[in-house]
């Protein structure tokens, strides 16, 4: 199995909605050994086969509410919401990886709260700050320093 896959997703034409892609690109620039990075507009079912090849999966998305940066986990074998539409949520994707490919992996979901989802190519200044903190935390997490997450006060942690 490969070590870790990072998936940043969102619409980069919709300002802060693209923060997941922004962060994933920064993680890719770090060239962390054993870490593959993908970006996409939205999650889709075929990713279930890809993620089943990894020990650790990190998904990064924008959120419209909650903490500026949030982290939670979900187990691939946990019940999840149904896929709805052409896209699919991280939990449902994890569940599909489990059901179809027997992947018992922990999904690590990072979200950064956006401020503007209007048309635009750039992040809001405060969101970019949050995104930079998220890059550091995710990089530490990928380097096996998961305590870096729980020690950061800006993060809410929740295990699903």
């Amino acid at each position, binding site marked *: 199995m490969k070590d870790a896959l990072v998936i940043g997703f969102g*619409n*980069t*034409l919709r300002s802060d909605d693209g923060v997941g892609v922004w962060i994933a690109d920064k993680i890719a620039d770090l060239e962390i050994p054993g870490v593959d990075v*993908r*970006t*996409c*507009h*939205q999650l*889709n*079912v*075929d990713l*279930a*086969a890809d993620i089943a090849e990894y020990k650790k999966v990190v998904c990064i998305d924008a959120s419209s509410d909650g903490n500026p940066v949030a982290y939670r986990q979900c187990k691939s074998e946990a019940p999840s919401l*149904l*896929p*709805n*539409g*052409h*896209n699919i949520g991280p939990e*449902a994707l994890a*569940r*599909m990886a489990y*059901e*179809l490919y027997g992947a018992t992996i922990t999904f690590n979901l990072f979200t950064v709260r956006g401020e503007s989802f209007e*048309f635009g190519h750039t992040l809001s200044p405060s969101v970019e700050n949050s995104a930079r903190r998220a890059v550091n935390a995710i990089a530490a997490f990928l380097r096996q320093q998961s305590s870096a997450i729980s020690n950061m006060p800006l993060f809410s942690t929740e295990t699903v």
Partner: protein
Amino acid sequence: MNNVVVGEGQEMAMSQTITISPVTRIEGHAKITIHLDEQGAVEDARFHVNEFRGFEKFCEGRLMWEMGGITSRICGICPTSHLVTSAKAGDDILAIEIPETAEKLRRLIILAQWVQSHALSFFHLSSPDFLLGFDADPSARNVFGLLAEHKEFIKRGIRLRKFGQEVIEILGGRKIHTPWAVAGGVREPFEPAKKDYLLNWIPEAKETALLALDELKKIHSKFKRDLPNFGNFRSLFVGLVAKDGALEYYDGLLRIMDAAGNTIADKLDPKRYFDFFGEATEQWSYLKFPYYKPLGYPDGMYRVGPLARVNVCDYIETPRAEAERILFKSIAADAGVVNNSFYYHYARLIELLFAVEKIEMLLNDPAIVGEHIRAKAMINRSEGVGVSEAPRGTLFHHYWVNDDGVLQKVNLVIATAQNNLAMNRTVRQIAMRYIDGKKITEGILNRVEAGIRCYDPCLSCSTHAIGQMPLHLQLFNAHNELLDEVAR
């Protein structure tokens, strides 16, 4: 008038309007309202699009060369169609003929887009309806519900979609929205080393496409009771065909066929689309209602996409898909065309098979690995139109630029909008058949949604014309009296 919302947390009471919101397993946001008369019979039904996106205004003031990168980010499902169509509009503005290799590579990526999109539509969005039935327990009527007995089927669907994605990624790069196709051609040639990798995948892809066709044909008999009222109505059909009448997906000329199979307009230059098609608006939807101008609105209703394409073409150039097309046409009997929208699924799978077969042909074409991939020129025209057949139907990009290539105006006519009238007609027909004014069962709800899913609509790119579309809110009481109204 009382409003009753059925859908997420369904409820039903004495009502004159039934709202189903949101429509599941289609892209974007939409709702359907069903309007009953005093006797509780269905009077009308509407498919509303509530998500508003103003991409065209957003594009104005940008450079023409940016459009591939921008428009391909409109949609997460068919970015490649927007990318190539945008590049074709750019070709027109440059007044340029692109190299043979570039055209073949663009054709290859469009077909790969068909594969991934059609596979997703059939295996993961519509197959729960087909394999589990419209009356199945809603908690199980989804892709998870299929996993118990149809795991291999779903996995095959994922592999097939992945094949399409892989072709796209090999050509265009990892990032789905990369501006690989550009005005004048494409940026990167095809790596010969990747050819065998993709060719080795073809037998499996073909087998899966054929398996899907076999499954679907078995399923048709299961839905005999539903078929007469499942988007079964007369309309026009519009699609591109090659000069010799073959199914076309990248270039070609427009053909318009009526419900009896008569070609009423042929060899139309798609760059003159505005001469043939008008766009009407309704206060209750952000999505426009394109129509065929000579017949007016709404009589000029037409359908695009797989059903239309397979209906209007004379033949399909690949052998197995052509054999299926002939079988498909036998459904029409004397009518000449298949008028039932339920058969969009069948036509979609024929196209899926064609796309796999044609990808194989293109991969074996020596020109596909040519190195002349881009022609260059200055701005030579002030406007340009690009057209292609996206998975859901004919896609038009129309740009107006100044001498520096800065966009002055943009018009995108997308497939889902062109099917808007037909989707509304489908919903109304299903509602009239199944709604009795007393209650809505899951089976009815499923059928209405499945009727929409025939068209596999993708709404994330289908709303436009910021500042021109009306926003209209109405508030009714139980006696159908208008209490308040906001329009802007």
